[in-house]
């Protein structure tokens, strides 16, 4: 196995009295697609948020290319998220007031690109994800499947090293879910982007190179290389 891109070592994190993570450890290799499986409340999403530097664990280490994410300041983590990570969530991925193309252009504009160039590149990505026709529509005016594909475009547009996807197909029917996954995984593989995928659907997890099953905040089973 190559030098891992992302590592989590013995993470513990509690929300109030209830522990969400209890000693979870996992590695993500460059270009690898990793699925986090497990029942509700097993800590999948929390682990994803820790790996993405959105949450900081109470104890344990989170490393990204040799940087200790858990020791970075909030600002630096924000900066890392916008330069190196992409995100797709189940709901509300899109900023409702913005049109599809503006949503996709958001990471580029956060990175300091000019509005025009950002939107031009966003449009290319929308075409690539076969949702060019909704470019000028807002989140409320498109279907769930279109919305998630726009979200995928937004996750990938800035060329991240890792995309974090939290139940990206959770609100979609199986066919739309498959389309979103095909597009996400296809584009990620082309670019060598890693994906950390939280899902409870085995068919979605089957897109991954490796599945890890969480139970009670720790890893119960690892399947794959």
């Amino acid at each position, binding site marked *: 196995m190559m030098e891992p891109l992302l590592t989590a070592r013995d993470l513990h994190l509690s929300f109030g009295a209830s522990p969400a993570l209890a000693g979870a450890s996992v590695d993500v290799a460059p270009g690898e697609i990793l699925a986090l499986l497990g029942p509700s409340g097993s800590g999948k999403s929390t682990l994803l948020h820790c790996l993405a530097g959105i949450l900081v664990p109470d104890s344990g280490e989170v490393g990204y290319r040799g940087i200790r994410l858990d020791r970075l300041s909030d600002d630096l983590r924000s900066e890392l998220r916008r330069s190196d990570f992409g995100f797709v969530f189940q709901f509300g991925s899109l900023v409702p007031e913005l049109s599809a193309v503006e949503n996709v252009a958001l990471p580029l504009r956060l990175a300091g690109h000019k509005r025009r160039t950002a939107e031009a590149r966003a449009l290319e990505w929308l075409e690539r994800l076969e949702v060019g026709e909704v470019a000028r529509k807002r989140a409320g005016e498109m279907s769930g499947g279109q919305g998630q594909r726009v979200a995928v475009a937004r996750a990938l547009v800035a060329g991240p090293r890792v995309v974090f996807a939290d139940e990206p197909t959770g609100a979609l029917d199986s066919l739309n879910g498959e389309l979103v996954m095909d597009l996400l995984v296809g584009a990620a593989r082309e670019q060598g982007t890693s994906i950390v995928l939280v899902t409870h*659907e*085995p*068919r979605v*997890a*089957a*897109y991954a190179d490796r*599945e890890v*099953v969480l139970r009670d905040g720790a890893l119960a089973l690892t399947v*794959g290389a």
Partner: protein
Amino acid sequence: MSVPLTLLGLLQVRPRHGYDLKRAYDAHFGHDRPLKPGQVYSTLGRLERDGFVVVSGTDRDGGPDRTTYAVTAEGVTDLDRWFAEPEGPAAYLQPVLFAKVVLALQSGRDAAQVLDAQRAEHLVAMRELTALKKDADLDRVLGLDFALFHLEADLRWLEHTAARLDRLGKELAR
């Protein structure tokens, strides 16, 4: 569904005679297709021939002779192998998986591990099928989807069973 291994597993829980074995089998696994009495004895005969079971005693309790069978060391090894190896992800796996879980619980083995091993097997199979779908023709894709949905159903059953192992163990112990 492997009747010989299931009977072997039941015998490992405790030595039984043929009728007792049939009743135990029917109670747990034979709701739809109970074992024929002849099938029990022929299977026991084959197991004895292969050295997996031995006659541990006969007793006459006012009725006909009853021969009690017990598992040999060789039989236990065979059972261990069976529990450890996940089933190939084929159709209609549920009865055998269920038998494995029940027997594992009754024989004091780690049923969760049995389930996890099976889960891993299924996930690998699904991953391979999903990979095949890429660049495949639609008729092939539809065939693969059929297999995938069935595997997914199995996996869901495995997850549900895993979540309820404690309760199952308690009910079996009653």
